[in-house]
């Protein structure tokens, strides 16, 4: 069992948890992920690692309640436990393989969308610890949905916050901020974009035009997370890759986002049914459009 030592609601429907998982905390690196399972009936849910404390043996996860499984996860309290917590899975971020000297000569831009701020944070923090200051754009739909602003501010070189509705910081999508920064004369050698698939797609279209190499972190459907099932296959540069063992980070300019987005829809009906069952229990008997 893996005990939840801290739980915090960052904003509506987005939760942060520190979980005791000694083996993961000892070896994980920025860019990697874990798979968690609530109980014996639970699905295996992949989540990116947001932070870790090697001494305390804890790993921080951040998740948004989107389906039945994450809604049930949100009901766990401090002191409760996950049945399973396995990792670290996937390859660490490529940046962590580089020497501090080579990193210091690079102008690095992070682009985080929504809950994507969680997997961006450990990378920016790790760079900060190497003495590298990276610029970070954090985008969210509205001010209320913004997460990890203070934490990010403490480790980023420059932090640019933008909201789609202009309720806080800059106004508009993250792509607008990238355009503005480049127009202001900023130059970047590399961009790391993590967020909803559609955001990563449009960031990549833009950075391709701007000639900024871009890394994205994909979160396709997975079962085992160790290469065994192939559910997470994505096409990168015309080749089939497994996100769990070859990724989750890939060259964004080579990813087939349209296919990846289609594949994410695979169990949408089943997921919809599960949410209704959770919310309405036995009272739900069809008629919702999701049920036969």
């Amino acid at each position, binding site marked *: 069992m893996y005990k939840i030592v801290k739980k915090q609601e960052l904003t509506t429907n987005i939760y942060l948890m520190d979980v005791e998982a000694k*083996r*993961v905390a000892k*070896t994980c690196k920025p860019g990697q992920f874990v798979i968690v*399972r609530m109980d014996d*009936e*639970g*699905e*295996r849910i992949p989540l990116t690692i947001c932070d870790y404390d090697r001494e305390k043996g804890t790993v921080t996860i951040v998740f948004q309640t989107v389906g*039945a*499984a994450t809604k049930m996860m949100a009901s766990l309290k401090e002191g409760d436990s996950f*049945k*399973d*917590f*396995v*990792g*670290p*899975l996937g390859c660490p971020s490529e940046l962590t393989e580089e020497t501090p000297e080579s990193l210091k000569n690079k102008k690095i831009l992070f682009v985080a969308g929504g809950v994507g701020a969680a997997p961006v944070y450990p990378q920016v923090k790790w760079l900060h610890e190497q003495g590298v200051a990276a610029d970070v754009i954090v985008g969210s739909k509205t001010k209320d949905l913004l997460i990890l602003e203070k934490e990010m501010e403490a480790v980023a070189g420059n932090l640019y916050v933008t909201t789609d509705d202009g309720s806080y910081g800059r106004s508009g999508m993250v792509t607008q901020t990238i355009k503005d920064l480049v127009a202001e004369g900023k130059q970047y050698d590399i961009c790391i974009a993590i967020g909803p698939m559609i955001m990563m797609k449009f960031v990549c279209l833009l950075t391709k035009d701007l000639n900024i190499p871009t890394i994205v972190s994909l979160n396709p459907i997975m*079962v*085992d997370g*160790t*290469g*065994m*099932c*192939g*559910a997470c*296959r*994505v*096409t990168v540069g015309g080749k*089939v890759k*497994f996100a769990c*063992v070859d990724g989750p980070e890939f060259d964004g300019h080579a990813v087939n986002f349209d*296919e990846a987005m*289609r*594949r994410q*829809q*695979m*169990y949408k009906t*089943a*997921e919809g049914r*599960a949410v209704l069952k959770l919310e309405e229990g036995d009272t739900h008997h069809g008629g919702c459009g999701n049920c036969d």
Partner: protein
Amino acid sequence: MDVLKKIPVREQDAKERAANFAEVCLGYNKEEAMEEASRCINCKNAQCIKGCPVSINIPGFIEKVKEGNIEEAYQIISESSALPAVCGRVCPQESQCEGKCIRGIKGDPISIGKLERFVADWARENGIKPAGATEKKGKKVAVIGSGPAGLTCAGDLAKMGYDVTIFEALHEAGGVLVYGIPEFRLPKEEVVAKEIENVKSLGVKIETNVVVGKSVTIDELMEEEGFSAVFIGSGAGLPKFMGIPGENSNGVFSANEYLTRSNLMKAFDEESNTPIMRGKKVAVVGGGNVAMDAARTALRLGAEVHIVYRRSEEELPARVEEVHHAKEEGIIFDLLTNPVEILADDNGWVTGMKCIRMELGEPDESGRRRPVEVAGSEFVMDLDTVIMSLGTSPNPLISSTTEGLETNKWKCIVADEANGKTTKEGVYAGGDAVTGAATVILAMGAGKAAAKGIDEYLSGK
């Protein structure tokens, strides 16, 4: 009683079982088992033992069944096999022990597999456990993977008195016995879980959720966690795909994914939180045991199911019994047929599969006649689900993180067949990680050989 004929084993009716996940074969009762055992002529130079990868004293245990002494029969089997209830169900006996049986020359061979199953089931129902070690060796051995190879190696080492810990990547122990082989062939709760309990009762510890190569490396296990030797039984690995257009469409799965959802995650059960595609018309591409398992699972989830295989029935790599069961249940075999493209609608969902007819030409390097395309014979099958069951390629997680561990050109770990020894000192390997996809019993044989190899290595230290 006709001594040339075996006692038939009771099975669930084909029509009935096509709609449920309960076990197909019902097994012998004690009377039937004793009667079948009485056909054994107890050969002095028993050929059946030579056909068994773990060399069970087959005439010895059958003799005890004949006498009705099932407990002793169980202890005889346990000397050689840690998983008799599993082997009695999934071993290809026709090409092993039963294939060598003298009775088979003039009539039916003794149903050794069904007798083994009966003995193991009886022992379980009567609470009989295998006998453990009497003396401890005071040395720790790590076993990676809790499939048939790992469980056998761990069980044997524990019986010799070693302190054994199994590290399992998934949340449940059992490996392919849990994620791969379906409930209707191998019940998970009553059979697999109980066999694992037996291994644990020998003193073996199992730590789940540890991905060796990621959570911890082999060097760390040996240098920091005090393990004197390591056995790698990490299994088959990454599923293969054909590389044809449309293969990433929604509704195309690897057999590994489809079976893992149904078996490990229990997606066949409405109460499970893990979804599975309940297709209406499904094609399973491939002809091995895994293809039969995927096809029969899809059938039970309500689909019309086709096996699409590029060679003819004679070349089907699956066990005869599995093919027979699949046909009885209504699986349609489209043989000498090869997919060339998967067709999808505008939203990326599978609508069909373009195939081409094949004919058999000259034998290839495997000795089987090579299938060649019949020009102009393309046709389209209407489908909503395609399951690719083409085998696996090795998982690089361990070999890429363990210095000094050699792999061959197929990226399988190089290990000595006789004792499991790898190119790294103190590290042994066996099962699919070494041979590529094979059978449960061959993996068990390798686990057994490696346990002996590890004991020799540690005794000499």
